[in-house]
């Protein structure tokens, strides 16, 4: 197959070069036939261009159809296609063609005698290839037509076409198509974290929207079509580095992130510099080293998936002369560094100190504590001090009954037998009962273990924690209300028509009486509830609480007089309220618990957790911690603030069973029998059918949801 081009030029050499460029071939790959040498004419008159025919040698023909490289219109090149057609090409823009349409036509008409072609096309064609307008007019062919697609977008030889206008064009014409492009610069911003630990680059990338002509097939008429493409514009990383330098950021700069960020094609945030955070140390700690190895045993996981706490819930005890525990010194942290290269100090750590209490002696280095008597170590953490004392233990052999009398002891009590009818056992520390508790009353300041049954009895465990659990929300409310009360007193006292004389006689009492009827309607009720609570826990409460409750009585409760005389007096009361509130919500070192075996027709109240080893029947259990029941809870009410886990709940035909946890708690039960009511927070649900593997809790909409099988 042969491909050839007929080319014109001022000289033969120029004509050949152009033909080679058009064919994309080298001189060695073609044969050249000079059709007409140039004739410069006389003084430029009658000058004629050189005309050559350049043919590709058969072996080096690449693709017969690819012959549309850009050609300068001044080249007046006339490439020939396979069949010898003469093609005139025009560049898209920027050309200043001198030759008019008629000269091109003349030229085309004058050519055929030289052209070897036999099939001459009558029509000129126009098309777009690779974004450029191409024109092919065969010798003697008609001129193709271009249509303006929008007013003033097409300019031919400096003359614009209006929308809907058309023009006949030749290869010699300058056709200019105006194509808009839109450029948006990238927007970026460097944010430095307040702590100086990170620098974040926020980028909205820039872009360039380019309009280009859509390629078409050759035709006698060309309707231009325009398409768009978006080219992202990258940010020069140097400007980012400059900004970092200007801001004195020197540490932790991540060059690879900057590279990625600068080339991002979507908006985003990039952390381009980050400091090294300090590593926290830890404060000094006190560690009990008692012989209660059982306590250190990891809780066992039972086959049904629940945890066996029994082995972990034991009382610590210690013998005379034994070491109670040691101090683990504070361990300082490691400083970090911010992006400015400054040192960031690790939080300070504090050592802890033992304050020896009753029956406790310190070692010479003051790091260990030794028991002077047998008993239970009682560490009490207050700030950076550990108050440590030994609580004595009372061993009672046999039953507690009418013959032995009640037991009241300021320490731990262990009873090897039973606690019989109507007897009371009260201890400030822990109580252990190896026998039954029958129609009796048990009050343990700390924790309680009962190895046998509890029948028709009343049990209170960890009273102080119970009290704290109940009093804390009341104090919080009181603190808020008193704060408002103080403001109200100030406001009224400032009113010009308000006389303060009577305050000297009565204090703020009359004013309170008015306010309690109006804006502070609920405060009186709350104060009365606090009084009831005090009555309930009177025996457990220490002096600071008693003093506080007396202050409430003389300050608010008497109608005739109050020891509060000014708003400032209330300020002092608010401080004391806050102090006690803090005490009530501070978790104790050792959480109280009641580990019980079987409970029937009894009431148990516990400040910490309750563990039921066998089961209950018609019992009333209340605890501020968690309730775990290995057996079945049959009939009665069960409240556990933090949640409960039980094997089975409900009673077939023996009255209702009610399980109740706080809003944040969960009820997990192996089985729940029909008729059982569960309550989570304020939401209540009663099971109509038996259900297995129940997990009940509140969802994010505060609705009670439960999973399980009915």
């Amino acid at each position, binding site marked *: 197959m042969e491909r050839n081009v007929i080319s014109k030029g001022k000289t033969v050499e120029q004509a050949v070069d152009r033909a080679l460029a058009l064919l994309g071939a080298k001189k060695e790959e073609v044969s050249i036939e000079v059709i007409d040498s140039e004739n410069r004419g006389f003084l430029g008159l009658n000058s004629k261009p050189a005309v050559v025919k350049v043919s590709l040698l058969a072996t080096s023909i690449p693709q017969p159809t690819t012959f549309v490289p850009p050609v300068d219109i001044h080249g007046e090149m006339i490439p020939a296609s396979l069949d010898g057609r003469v093609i005139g090409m025009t560049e898209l823009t920027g050309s200043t063609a001198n030759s008019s349409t008629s000269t091109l036509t003349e030229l085309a008409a004058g050519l055929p005698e030289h052209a070897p072609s036999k099939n001459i096309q009558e029509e000129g064609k126009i098309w777009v290839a690779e974004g450029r307008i191409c024109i092919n007019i065969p010798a003697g062919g008609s001129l193709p037509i271009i249509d303006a697609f929008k007013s003033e977008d097409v300019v031919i030889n400096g003359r614009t076409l209006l929308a809907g206008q058309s023009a006949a064009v030749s290869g010699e014409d300058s056709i200019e198509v105006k194509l808009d492009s839109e450029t948006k610069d990238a927007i970026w911003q460097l944010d430095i974290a307040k702590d100086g630990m990170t620098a974040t680059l926020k980028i909205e990338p820039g872009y360039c929207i380019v309009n280009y002509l859509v390629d078409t097939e050759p035709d006698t008429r060309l309707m231009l079509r325009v398409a768009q493409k978006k080219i992202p514009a990258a940010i020069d990383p140097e400007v980012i580095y400059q900004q970092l330098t200007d801001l004195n950021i020197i540490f932790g700069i991540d060059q690879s992130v900057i590279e990625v960020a600068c080339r991002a094609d979507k908006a985003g945030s990039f952390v381009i510099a980050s400091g090294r955070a300090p590593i926290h140390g830890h404060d000094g700690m006190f560690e009990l080293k008692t012989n209660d190895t059982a306590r250190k045993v990891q809780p066992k996981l039972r086959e049904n998936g629940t945890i066996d706490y029994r082995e972990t819930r034991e009382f610590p005890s210690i013998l005379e002369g034994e070491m109670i525990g040691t101090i683990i010194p504070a361990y300082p942290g490691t400083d970090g560094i911010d992006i400015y290269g400054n040192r960031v100090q690790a939080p300070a750590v504090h050592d802890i100190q033992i304050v020896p209490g009753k029956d406790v002696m310190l070692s010479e280095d003051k790091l260990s504590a030794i028991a002077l008597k047998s008993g239970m170590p009682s560490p009490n953490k207050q700030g950076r001090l550990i108050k440590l004392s030994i609580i004595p233990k009372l061993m009672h052999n046999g039953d507690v009954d009418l013959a032995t009398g009640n037991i009241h002891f300021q320490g731990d009590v262990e009873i090897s037998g039973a606690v019989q009818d109507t007897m009371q056992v009260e201890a400030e520390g822990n109580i252990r009962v190896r026998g039954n508790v029958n129609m009796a009353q048990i009050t343990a300041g700390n924790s309680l273990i009962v190895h046998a049954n509890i029948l028709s009895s009343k049990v209170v465990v960890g009273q102080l924690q119970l009290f704290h659990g109940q009093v804390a929300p009341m104090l919080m409310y009181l603190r808020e209300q008193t704060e408002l009360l103080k403001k*109200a007193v100030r*406001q*009224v006292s400032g*009113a*010009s*028509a*308000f*006389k*303060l*004389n*009577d*305050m000297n*006689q*009565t204090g*703020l009492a*009359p*004013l309170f*009486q*008015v*306010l309690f*009827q*109006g*804006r502070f309607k609920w405060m009186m009720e709350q104060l009365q509830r606090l009084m009831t609570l005090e009555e309930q826990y009177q025996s457990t409460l220490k002096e600071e609480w008693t003093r506080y409750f007396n202050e409430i009585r003389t300050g608010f409760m008497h109608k005739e007089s109050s020891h509060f005389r000014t708003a400032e007096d209330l300020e002092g009361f608010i401080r004391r309220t806050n102090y006690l509130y803090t005490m009530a919500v501070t978790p104790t070192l050792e959480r109280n618990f009641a580990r019980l075996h079987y409970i029937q027709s009894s009431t148990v109240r516990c400040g910490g957790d309750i563990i039921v080893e066998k089961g209950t029947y018609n019992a009333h259990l209340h605890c501020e911690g968690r309730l775990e029941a290995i057996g079945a809870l049959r009939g009665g009410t069960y409240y556990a603030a933090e949640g409960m886990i039980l094997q089975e709940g409900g009673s077939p035909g023996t009255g209702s069973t009610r399980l109740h946890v706080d809003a944040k708690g969960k009820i997990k039960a192996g089985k729940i029998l029909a008729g059982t009511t569960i309550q989570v927070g304020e939401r209540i649900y009663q099971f109509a059918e038996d259900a297995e593997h129940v997990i009940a809790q509140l969802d994010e909409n505060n609705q009670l949801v439960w999973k399980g099988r009915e």
Partner: protein
Amino acid sequence: MFSYRLELTGEEIVVYCEGDIDIDAGDTFEEELEPELAKAAVVILNLESVQFVDSSGIGLLIKLVQNLQEQERQVWIEKTQPEVMEVFELLQLDEILGKSIFR
């Protein structure tokens, strides 16, 4: 010093209060004024000449009005001085005695 003057028109009695309603007005309020109002179905307390109040006095006023209201009698407080009204408003007397008490 607190004093008052009564003006009876049919079943309506107007109490023209004068002086301060304060802790010293206690006896006058409880022992003299309250019994005198026993007959009237409508009681109007005119406070135009009251310039000062204290918390005890407001307590007395509340008690008096509440007692009368319990006996299902219509009570109004009128012509209160703006300074005194400010105190009443701070203490939300309209909440305690009913919104329509002041006129």
